[in-house]
């Protein structure tokens, strides 16, 4: 049962610039995954375990106590571009 995929839209959401050939390649690969998911959904009845949270644990919290943060110089040394303690990124808006 083939699943319709707007692969160009998916690529845009992921900010990937793909060629026609690549789009086709990924459309087929993603299609196989989604077809499998569709088969799973055809199963009747509720799953016997919580599939998203299978641990059976609830309410794992921490107390509101502040702790240490990273050393800024060491942190910023990992970045491609910094200025006055900030990370520098390209302009935020797309053309």
């Amino acid at each position, binding site marked *: 049962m083939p699943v319709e995929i707007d692969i160009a839209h998916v690529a845009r959401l992921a900010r990937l610039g793909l060629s026609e050939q690549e789009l086709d390649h990924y459309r087929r690969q993603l299609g196989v995954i989604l077809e499998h998911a569709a088969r799973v959904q055809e199963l009747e009845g509720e799953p016997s375990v919580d599939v998203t949270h299978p641990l059976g644990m609830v309410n794992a919290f921490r107390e509101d106590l*502040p*702790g240490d*943060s990273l050393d800024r110089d060491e942190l910023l040394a990992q970045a491609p571009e910094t200025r006055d303690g900030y990370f520098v990124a390209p302009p935020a808006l797309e053309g």
Partner: protein
Amino acid sequence: MTWEAVIGIEVHVELSTESKMFCSCEVSFGAEPNTKVCPTCLGLPGALPVPNEKALDSIMAIGLALNCKVAPNSVFHRKNYFYADLPKNYQISQFDVPVCLDGYLDTTVDGETHRVGIERAHMEEDTGKSTHVGEGGRIHAASSTLLDFNRSGVPLVEIVSRPDIHSAAQARSYAQALRGVVAELGVSDARLEEGSIRFDANISIRPEGDDELGTKVEVKNMNSFRSLEQAVDYEIKRQIDLVESGGTVIQETRHWDEEAGVTHSMRTKEGSSDYRYFAEPDLVPMEMGREWVDRIAATLPELPEQRLERYRSAGLEDTLAAVLSGADSPLRGLYEDAVESGADARAAANWVTGEVTAWARRNETETQDLAISGSQLAGLLALIDDGKVSASAAKDVLDGVLLGEGDPAEVAESRDLIQISDSAAIDAVVDEVLQTNPDAVESLRNGEDKVLGFLVGQVMRATRGKADPQLVNATIRERVGSG
């Protein structure tokens, strides 16, 4: 055609917890950039989030104050999108099972109660802060973006209203009332100018009488109640003009430009499915049991709308009740204590919102540092009531009390402000004044009432303003026999 605006408001409230939502970095406004960050809030691979319990307490308090139901079970989801201030490329948020659901907030618009439904309040994390640099700091002309991740991961509560708002004035009133609730709860600094409370408006228009909703536009970047009102007003007009001239409203996010007083298109808004929400696998579900909800409910303070109602039923007229209700908590406490000590509610409210507030402003004193107790204020009002000090001398007494000179009666004594109501003392001064002004006395006898004021003035001068003017007035008339 007549158009109806349909407006829903999304409010983001930054919680003032000590530490962030999913890591122990300190929450600190105004710290040096990128000094309150760690692998978790920087989205580094392998870092694991652990939720801050206090933040959950706070969102439950907000939900309960907004008459919401607290969901028995709730989970976090990942909201996926790409933006430079979101280092993980997803925000931990909530999708179909938020912590709080289905409440309302009553506000007062033009003297009438306006109820706005609350669809939900959910827990999420804030993003980093981006500063667009380039041409004049304006987002459209930016040449690069500076990023500070101190804010990344700060606990954030998003409160989504139902589309029950139909004008810019209602939008403003709702926003102000909501800010009042959050400030009262003490869960956030709730400062618009610092961005610790932020308002976005979803605005659409439809022909009046239609049930179907029009295409909505999200307007962002309003950092005062005034700009919220202006932006909503502008956007309603923009949409009406657009549609009436044959255009179509498109679903998008628009940015309010405060200086130009217009909204600009920012980006085409991604639909909900584009965010590819899925349950956050790094976090276990939450169960908000009855005991937890009850514990939070027991901590709720009196909320602004409830307080207003209580002031009104104590006999304060609407304006006075509203002014007092909006006053700083130390001033309200002073009022409460004075009434507790037997002061008349209206007199106490008038003095607190009038002379006491003015004194604090004049002397640049924080209201919590005002050195007057409720019983002292009640004592001062009793001095006026008993005719011991005049209303104007009472201001001097207040000054003395606030400067630490003692109780009202002591100050009135030491500053020599006790009103002379002793008739023997006044008789003596009146007689002296009458003797030295025989012409005026003659005129008064002949019915020239205007000289009465002159004679009263002379007595007041001789007593340095301390005589009870009404008593002086009566005594002169009696002595001259002109009454």
